[in-house]
């Protein structure tokens, strides 16, 4: 990939997911951080992505419906007995 004639912000956008996943090479990571140091526009978008990931993870959580645990326990093939730990 020729990065020289690519818009640096577009290139930074390409690196965002692998950067946040910690799978960039050391050289790529340094390159991304170098750009982020100077570019508030990209930095905002990286921060947003980080917040979004946390937000999706926490917001999407739905607790187990009441009664499901009981139904699952009834599927057991063994009898745990009163002394089961």
């Amino acid at each position: 990939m020729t990065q020289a004639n690519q818009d640096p912000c577009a290139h930074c956008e390409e690196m965002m997911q692998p950067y946040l996943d910690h799978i960039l090479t050391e050289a790529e990571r340094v390159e991304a951080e170098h750009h982020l140091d100077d570019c508030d526009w990209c930095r905002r978008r990286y921060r947003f992505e980080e917040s979004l990931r946390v937000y999706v993870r926490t917001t999407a959580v739905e607790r187990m419906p009441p009664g499901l645990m009981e139904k699952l326990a009834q599927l057991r093939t063994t009898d745990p007995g009163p002394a089961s730990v």
Partner: protein
Amino acid sequence: MSGATVAEMAEAPPDATRIAAEARDRVRFEEEALALSDQVFRVARHLAGSREEAEDLVQETYARAFRSWRSYQPGTNLRAWLLRILTNLNIDRGRRKQRAPQTTPLEANDYYLYDKLAESDGAATDEERVVERLSQDDIVTALAAVPHDFRDVIVLVDLGDFSYQDAASILDIPIGTVMSRLHRGRRILKRELADSVLEDVS
């Protein structure tokens, strides 16, 4: 060889000892599996299309797990083992058919969602606040709109905290495929979120 003494072996025939040990292993397996049910449900909820489907799927998964407990290798990741059963059942139930196989899903660039949110908000606000403009409903609906193959990976890795390697073995796909689907899937998800926000505005 067990460490049973000659006296013990005389009391209990080897078969009985083995059966008792197996029964104990089985009880322990079932208890460990049940202890994970809340976590299994949380992932299942978004692999399936609805809460009701997820509930059925989890029950089927546990029924199968309890029957085939011997194929679980103690010491390996039990949550991943359960999710592997669950995703296979989910695919068997025909969810695979719901996806249009040859159509290219809509994905936008990685900055697209932020740009749309910031644009419709007017004044630039901080990134943590911008995210809160998305409701739980927006997120659940957008996730459900992501095609199955991509959604499975997002749900396992981003919501379920599975490693790429675990996701690859649960879904029986190469790790490189996990990574590329995750990357594209997140873009599709953001596109869906942006669409839902734009709908709210109009």
